[in-house]
């Protein structure tokens, strides 16, 4: 039985494009352009995953409201924000509400589908009593389970978004090697926009590590190229 993907997007053209792409990947998309309609429908029949835009017609923060209500009704529901709002404050607000990821448009449809697939994989892994041994990376104090999307630093769990998780995973897979900006974007399933986008993700990741360990300095900038995970 195909997974149901709820899509809420006020632009009908985009909505249909996303729905077509999802359908092509074997999912069953359910699309709405208005928050109230979506809330009513999803409350009765929750989708397996929701992709929400933030601005919905006249409701500037309609997506946030919708996310809050949906997660209140269905706490385990994975939500991805897909929006053209790039401000930090929006991203932080969205992630605080409990979204798995916050993606800014334009996103490649393939990447979107991959993200969705990754989330389903992770959820599935998490539902298994024991994770598989493959996909587990350990380097120094870092332990990372790619399947379950869990990260621990010195034993303490770290809460990363899907994008951040994939960047850390890409970096620590080969400690010491430089990961270029482009490859980091690929790993994060993001279209290349600018170095600055990667920089912003790295800053968030460093901040989260630093919150656990103020002396954290494993992620090093290789200026003009990209980043690398420092070898121990």
């Amino acid at each position, binding site marked *: 039985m195909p997974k149901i993907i709820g899509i809420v997007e006020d632009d009908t053209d*985009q909505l249909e*494009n996303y729905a077509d792409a999802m359908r092509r990947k074997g999912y069953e998309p359910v699309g709405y352009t208005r928050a109230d309609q979506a809330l009513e429908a999803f409350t009765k029949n929750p989708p397996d995953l929701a992709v929400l835009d933030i601005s919905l017609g006249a409701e500037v923060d309609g997506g946030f409201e919708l996310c809050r209500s949906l997660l209140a009704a269905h706490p385990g529901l994975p939500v991805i924000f897909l929006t*053209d709002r790039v401000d930090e404050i929006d991203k932080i607000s969205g992630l605080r509400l409990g979204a798995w990821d916050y993606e800014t448009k*334009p996103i490649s449809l393939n990447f979107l589908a991959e993200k969705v697939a990754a989330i389903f994989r992770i959820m599935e892994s998490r539902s298994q009593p024991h994770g598989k041994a493959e996909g587990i990376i350990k380097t120094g104090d870092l332990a990372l389970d790619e399947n379950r999307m869990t990260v621990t630093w010195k034993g303490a769990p770290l809460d990363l978004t899907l994008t951040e998780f994939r960047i850390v995973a890409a970096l620590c897979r080969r400690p010491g090697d430089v990961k270029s900006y482009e490859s980091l974007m690929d790993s994060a399933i993001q279209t290349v926009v600018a170095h600055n986008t990667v920089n912003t993700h790295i800053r968030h990741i460093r901040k989260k590590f630093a919150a656990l360990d103020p002396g954290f300095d494993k992620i090093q900038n290789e200026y*003009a*190229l990209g980043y690398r995970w420092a070898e121990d």
Partner: protein
Amino acid sequence: MRLGIRARLILLTLAFLVIPVLAYISSQEMKRFMLRHQQSSQLIAAQALAASLHGQYAQFQMRQEKSGELTDAAMFIHRATSPFRMDGLADEWAPAASAVREFGRESLLMESGGGFDPATGGFKLIVARWEDHIYLLVSVQDETVIPISRGWTDPGKADHLRLGLGAPGEGERKYIVPVSSDGELSFLEEAPGGGRVERNETLAGRVKINSRGYVMEIALPESQIAGSMTLRIIAEDVDDQRRGRVKSAIGPMEDGAPGLIHLAYFQSPEIQGMLDSLDLAEVEARVFDRARRLRASTGFAADVSGEGEALRILASGAPYYTNIETGPNGEKVVAAAPIKGSDGGSLGVVILERSTRGADSMQDKAMENTLWGAFLAFVAVAAGLVIFSTRLSWRIHRLRGEAERAIDQEGRVRVDGLEASRESGDEIGDLSRSISGLLKKLRSHHDFLAILPRTLKHEINNPLNTITVSLENLAAQEMGQAGSKYIQSAGRGVARLREIVDNLAEAASVEDSIQEEKFEPVDLALILERYMENSAGVYKDRRIQFSNRAGKAAILGSDYRIEQLLDKLMDNALDFTFRDGTIEARLERMNGRFLLTFYNDGPPIPERTLGNMFDSLVADREGDKSARTHLGIGLYVARAICQGHGGGISARNTSDGKGVEFLVILPAARHG
């Protein structure tokens, strides 16, 4: 030279200085006018006085002439107003100077031996009266004064005067008065017919010998001359005391009597009374007779020098006035009118003297008042102007300062309006309000421009997203080779559009986002070293170099912003450097700052662009052949990053014209 409003206004007040000048000119005019007025009125007064004197004077003159008292040769007795000290000094005689009579060569009565020496023997005589005594002042010129010695029996062997009192031949008493060395005069009376001499005690006098001769002061009772009104006086000069011979004798000669002088009381009571009754303020009036003797006067001015001239003019018989200087600053008007006799000849002259002090003091007073007035007006107006102009300057200064601060270096309006002179109703207030209005319009325009990229991005993003996802979906269909080619080119176009929009949005927000960032100490040298090394690895067709002369270069900043800055500089350099061209970064330390010189081989930047190439949407370099989008946003962002770090950026062409240097200055982190 540039003059401010205040300086100009103060210069204008100097125009007030013309007031005293004008006042001086007009007071001079006024003085001239007053002088003319004084001259003519004085002349008229003199003529009137002369006319009114005519009858009485003629009578008086006639009476005296008839009584034989008065001839033209008669000498007047000066009426003294104070007693004389018998001390042989002539000082208290000054008021009587007009009554002096001189006897010189023409009065030589006798001489023996060599020729007459004009320096010797001549004398001056003044006769004056005080109460019931007649006083004589006799100043004799004598180079060799021989006083009488003790034991001499013949007083004639010393220099002496011969005096005769009373009418000749009618009981006249004759005296010899020798010069004495002790100053006391003795009056030796000759017995009638010559012979014995006896000392007369009723007469008294003193003598004083001086370098020019000797001066005798003699007092005698008025009764001695009252009957005859004559006096006989002869000065006999003795130069050889052994021989005791009289060398010369000087004295008047009248009516065949040697030494005889007719005396007359000069006062004509009627004329004097008339002058007194005139009570002329500040006017001195004198009446002279035709023999130039003063007959009546008000005041007793010693200085009668001016009268001589007036009297000389009198010869013409016409009224006359003249101005005579009486001192360095003094002047007087002398007006003379003849007293006509019945025969048409002149009987005498009336002279009125008045100093021009009145006109002078009026001029001085007027000048003083004007000067004070002008000075006070000048001070008041200057003070007013200083206050006014200071305030005006201050207001304009403040307005200018505020207007300048209203727009920052990048030309952004920082305020809604100006505070300076906002409420005032004058022109500056108008100016302030009009500038405020302009600023408001400018600001709303700027605000519009500032949000334009974001609005644009927001508005364009949606359709762009639609196109992007649609293209992707299209690509997922089987389109054939031609179809997918077009889809790819459409995709590139969309990507390019998006880059433009993103760049615009980034530029619009870069300053604000740098402001919000937290800076940490970073090593600029290390970043540069790695950056240039990595870039050299990526761009192998350029010679990318780094030279560090600063050592460790700690700055307070954001490493990825510095990297972004270097990206912009590198992008720019890559765009203009041909294959195998050099791109070089040099880092130096200077005065607590670091200078990063980012050089690239390439065409020079046109001069017109150098000044504004860091402003947004300015991209103007020939030789840019790349297909990349160029909105001039890169350098704008670069400048924002530099300024966000407390530094700055500028660009210049190298002197050889073969390359371009971007100069980035960033402040060093302070230790501690």
